């Protein structure tokens, strides 16, 4: 029974890595986007697994219900028939691959300093209420700032998206 979370974690990790690779290697952008939807869903599951229930719901609500739908929307708007025939990576893919490998290996090796950390014994508790208190308490200033950023993004998106004529 105690192995169940670990099993779930490994399965999710594998799914996440696979879908992430899919995002960056799929030839069709639409497939990439669908793959990203899957990856994000897995991340939401990971959040739930780590006891962040509110975050999981928010992840699904914002990323999948919002960002990814708009992303797909734009993909559908901007796609042209011959796009799926074209190569989707540029000339520097090998250099980039080397660099990404260096970064990934360094990160994984760098995180080894945490390898002796004990497994957490604290049982997760529902987070929504306390998260709300945190956001409107200690984190009030960044919270308000972020709402301003959202407003600015809204205005900016309307401005950029406007047709030149109107």
């Amino acid at each position, binding site marked *: 029974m105690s192995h169940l*979370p670990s099993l779930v974690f490994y399965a999710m990790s594998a799914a996440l890595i696979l879908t992430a690779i899919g995002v*960056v290697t799929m030839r069709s952008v639409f497939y990439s986007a669908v793959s990203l939807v899957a990856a994000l869903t897995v991340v939401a599951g990971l959040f739930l697994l780590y006891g962040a229930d509110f975050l999981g719901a*928010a992840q699904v609500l914002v990323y999948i219900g919002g960002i990814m739908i708009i992303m797909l929307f734009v993909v559908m708007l*901007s796609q042209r028939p011959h796009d799926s025939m074209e190569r989707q990576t540029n000339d520097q893919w090998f250099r980039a691959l080397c660099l990404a490998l260096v970064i990934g290996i360094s990160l994984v090796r760098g995180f080894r300093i945490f390898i002796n*950390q004990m497994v957490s014994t604290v049982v997760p508790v529902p987070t929504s209420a306390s998260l709300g208190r945190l956001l409107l308490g200690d984190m009030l200033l960044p919270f308000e700032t972020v709402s301003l*950023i959202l407003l600015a993004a809204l205005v900016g998106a*309307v401005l950029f998206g406007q047709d030149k004529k109107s």
Partner: protein
Amino acid sequence: MTLYHGLALSGIVFSIGVYGVLTRRNVLGILMSIELMFNAANIALVVFNRYLHPGNLWGQGFVLFVITVAAAEAVVGLSLVLAIYRNLKSVYTENMNLLHG
């Protein structure tokens, strides 16, 4: 399933995102890769919060902010992509070279 595992997963996903950002020709692909990197960072934050500071929720709060900023970034980025597409009829980065001699 320890702290190290979570962080390693985060690092791997992050480097995949870096690769995507550096290689995708399509601007949308770049945006998606950036989302991947965001999520890798989010995983790291949640994991740190879970294992190092289980008593409070600051890590999760930060994740919320990251999600919010990511949403803002995606919206502005996508509207920019649409504007570029309207003008250039292309979403490939190598065509966005108006300043190229």
